[in-house]
C-alpha cells in the first residue's frame, strides 16, 4: 500500500477502501452533519423533496442557530423556527437553543461532537475548523447537506495535499491568527484551491489548541477544502474529557506524497493585519500605518475562544477603549461566556468601555450588532474582509489577532500591544 497523507487516510477509512489517491471520486460515510440558521432552512426544504421521512441518525446531526440569533428580525425568527421545528420533529439530539448555544465552530469541538479521524460535513464554509483535531472537515452547500442528512453519505473528490512546515518559535503577541494570515498572504486566496493543507513543524507543536482552531478555520480563505493538524498529545488531551463515543485517530504516513511542501521560519514574524478587501492583503502591524478605526470586533469562529478573549483582556485591563471607537466583544459559546464572568474578564471588558454580547455571529457577516456605515473602518478578529462583509460596501474591514484588535481599540488606530508598553 502506498503511504497516505492525513486527508487521504481519513477519506479512505470512510470510503471503506484500503487506499485512495488524489483525483478519485469516492462515496464516503460521514460522522457528523452540521447546518445553521441560514443554511438549514434551504437544506430542510431540499430534504423534504427526497422522499424520505427520517434523517439517517438524529445523534449525528448538529443544528445551531448562531448567525442571526438571538433573532435579529421577523424573517430571521422564521428561519430559526423552521430549524427548531425540524429539530423537534426529527428528534435531533444536538440542537442548541439561545442561552445555551455558541458559534457553531467554537461550540461543536467544545461539546465533544468532533473527534480525531472523523469525516465532518457542514453547510458552512468554516466547517474546516475541526481540522485542528485531526478530522477531515469541509464546508458544502445546503443541497449537499440535505442529502447527507438523509443518507449519512457524501460524494467527495480526494484532494491533493499541501504541507506547510513552520519552524522557529513565535514572538510575544503572535499566534495562530498571524500564522494563517501570513500563509494566506504568501499563497493567495486561491493558493490551496481544492487542496487539503497539513500544518506542521516545531511552531505548530508549540501552538495551543485554540491557536490551531484559528488556523484550520481560515484554511478556506486560501481556497482549501480542509486544513488539518496531525493529532498529538495536546489534541488527545483536548478530546479526552469531551468525546465519549469511539473514534479512530490517524496520523499521516511517513513518505506520504504532497503536491508541494512549503517551509517558513516564523521566529521574526510580527502580528499580521489583512487590509481590505482580501484576506491575502497582509502586512506586518508595524507597516499598518496607523489606520484610524471606528470599531473593533473581538470574537467569531476564528477568535472567539477562551485564549483569544484572555489575550484581549490582558491588553484592556486597566485601560479604556478610545473615545472614537466602539469595541464589541463576543464570546464564542455560553461556556466561555460563563468563564468570562467567573474569572472577572467580563468586568475588565465592561470597565474598559466595551460592549459584551451573548454568543452570535452578528457583526462578522454584517448581520447585526455592529453593522458599519459607509466610510467606516473596523479592525476585526474575524476571517473575511470582502467588500460589504460587515455592512456598507464602502466600509472597510481589517483582520488581526485579538491582542492587536484590543490594542487598536485603545489607540483609536491600528497598532500593537507593544505600543501600549506591553
Amino acid at each position, binding site marked *: 500500500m502506498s503511504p497516505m497523507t492525513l486527508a487521504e487516510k481519513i477519506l479512505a477509512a470512510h470510503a471503506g477502501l484500503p487506499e485512495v489517491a488524489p483525483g478519485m471520486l469516492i462515496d464516503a460515510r460521514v460522522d457528523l452533519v452540521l447546518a445553521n440558521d441560514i443554511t438549514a432552512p434551504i437544506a430542510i426544504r431540499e430534504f423534504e423533496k427526497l422522499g424520505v421521512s427520517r434523517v439517517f441518525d438524529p445523534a449525528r446531526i448538529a443544528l445551531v442557530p448562531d448567525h442571526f440569533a438571538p433573532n435579529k428580525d421577523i424573517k430571521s425568527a422564521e428561519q430559526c423556527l423552521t430549524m427548531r421545528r425540524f429539530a423537534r420533529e426529527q428528534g435531533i439530539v444536538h440542537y442548541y437553543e439561545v442561552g445555551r448555544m455558541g458559534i457553531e465552530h467554537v461550540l461543536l469541538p467544545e461539546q465533544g461532537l468532533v473527534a480525531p479521524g472523523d469525516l465532518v460535513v457542514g*453547510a458552512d*464554509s468554516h466547517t474546516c475548523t475541526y481540522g485542528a483535531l485531526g478530522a477531515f472537515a469541509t*464546508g458544502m*452547500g445546503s443541497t*449537499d447537506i440535505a442529502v447527507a442528512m438523509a443518507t449519512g453519505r457524501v460524494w467527495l473528490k480526494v484532494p491533493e495535499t499541501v504541507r506547510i512546515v513552520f519552524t522557529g518559535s513565535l514572538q510575544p503577541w503572535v499566534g495562530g491568527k498571524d500564522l494563517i494570515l501570513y500563509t494566506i498572504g504568501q499563497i493567495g*486566496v486561491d493558493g490551496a*484551491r481544492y487542496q487539503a493543507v497539513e500544518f506542521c513543524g516545531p511552531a505548530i507543536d508549540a501552538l495551543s489548541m485554540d491557536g490551531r482552531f484559528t488556523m484550520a478555520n481560515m484554511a478556506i480563505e486560501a481556497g482549501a477544502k480542509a486544513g488539518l493538524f496531525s493529532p498529538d498529545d495536546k489534541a488527545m488531551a483536548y478530546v479526552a474529557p469531551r468525546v465519549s463515543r469511539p473514534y479512530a485517530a490517524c496520523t499521516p504516513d511517513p513518505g506520504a506524497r504532497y503536491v508541494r511542501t512549503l517551509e517558513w521560519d516564523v521566529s521574526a514574524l510580527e502580528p499580521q493585519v489583512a487590509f481590505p478587501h482580501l484576506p491575502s492583503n497582509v502586512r506586518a502591524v508595524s507597516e499598518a500605518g496607523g489606520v484610524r478605526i471606528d470599531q473593533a470586533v473581538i470574537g467569531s469562529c476564528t477568535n472567539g475562544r477562551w485564549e483569544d478573549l484572555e489575550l484581549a483582556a490582558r491588553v484592556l485591563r486597566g485601560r479604556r477603549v478610545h473615545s472614537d471607537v466602539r469595541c464589541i466583544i463576543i464570546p464564542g459559546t455560553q461556556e466561555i461566556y460563563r468563564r468570562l464572568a467567573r474569572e472577572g474578564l467580563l468586568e475588565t471588558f465592561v470597565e474598559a468601555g466595551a460592549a459584551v454580547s451573548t454568543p452570535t455571529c452578528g457583526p462578522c457577516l454584517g448581520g447585526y450588532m455592529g453593522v458599519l456605515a459607509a466610510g467606516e473602518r473596523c479592525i476585526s478578529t474575524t476571517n473575511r474582509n*470582502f467588500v460589504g462583509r460587515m455592512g456598507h460596501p464602502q466600509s472597510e474591514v481589517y483582520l488581526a489577532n485579538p491582542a492587536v484588535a484590543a490594542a487598536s481599540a485603545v489607540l483609536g488606530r491600528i497598532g500593537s500591544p507593544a505600543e501600549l508598553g506591553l
Partner: protein
Amino acid sequence: MTISGRVWKYGDNVDTDVIIPARYLNLSDPQELARHCLEDLDAGFAGAVRPGDIIVAGANFGCGSSREHAPLAIKAAGVSCVVAESFARIFFRNAINIGLPILECPAAARATAAGQHLDIDLAAGIIRNVETGETFHANPYPPFMLDLIAAGGLIEYTRRRLAAGRTGSGAACCE
C-alpha cells in the same frame, strides 16, 4: 443542451458576499434573492440582466462562504451559464447540485468582453464567441457529474437512487 446569451464580464475572486450580501440571508426565496444579485459589485446588474445572459469571470469565482443563496440568486436572475477561469470549490458543487450550468475555461474567460455573445454546447463543453468567431474547449466533467447534471441536480439524482433502493451517492472510485 445549447445556450446562447449576452455577456456580463467580471474579474478575479468574485466572492459570495458580493454575489449575495449577508444582509439578505434572512431570505431564501430565489426570486427575492435574485433582486439583490451582485448588488455590491455591480448595482446595475439585477435591474438590467435578461433571461439567458451569461456571466464570464476570472479566477476563483464564488470564493468565500458556502451559501447556496449565491448560485440560487444567479440562477433565479435568469443567468443561463457562468464561464470562469476557475471556480471556488464549494460554489462549484453548489452550482452543479442546483442545476446552474458552469464551465471552467481560462482561454474563453480571458478572450471574452462584456456585451459580446456566446454560444455554448454544454455537453460537449464548446464555447463560441459570436462576435469574434473564436471557439474554446472547457475542461470536461467526469461521468458521475454529467449524470448529476442530466438528472437536473443532486436532489432529483438522489431521490431516484433512494426510490430504487440504492444507498450511497453512486460516485465511482476509479475516475
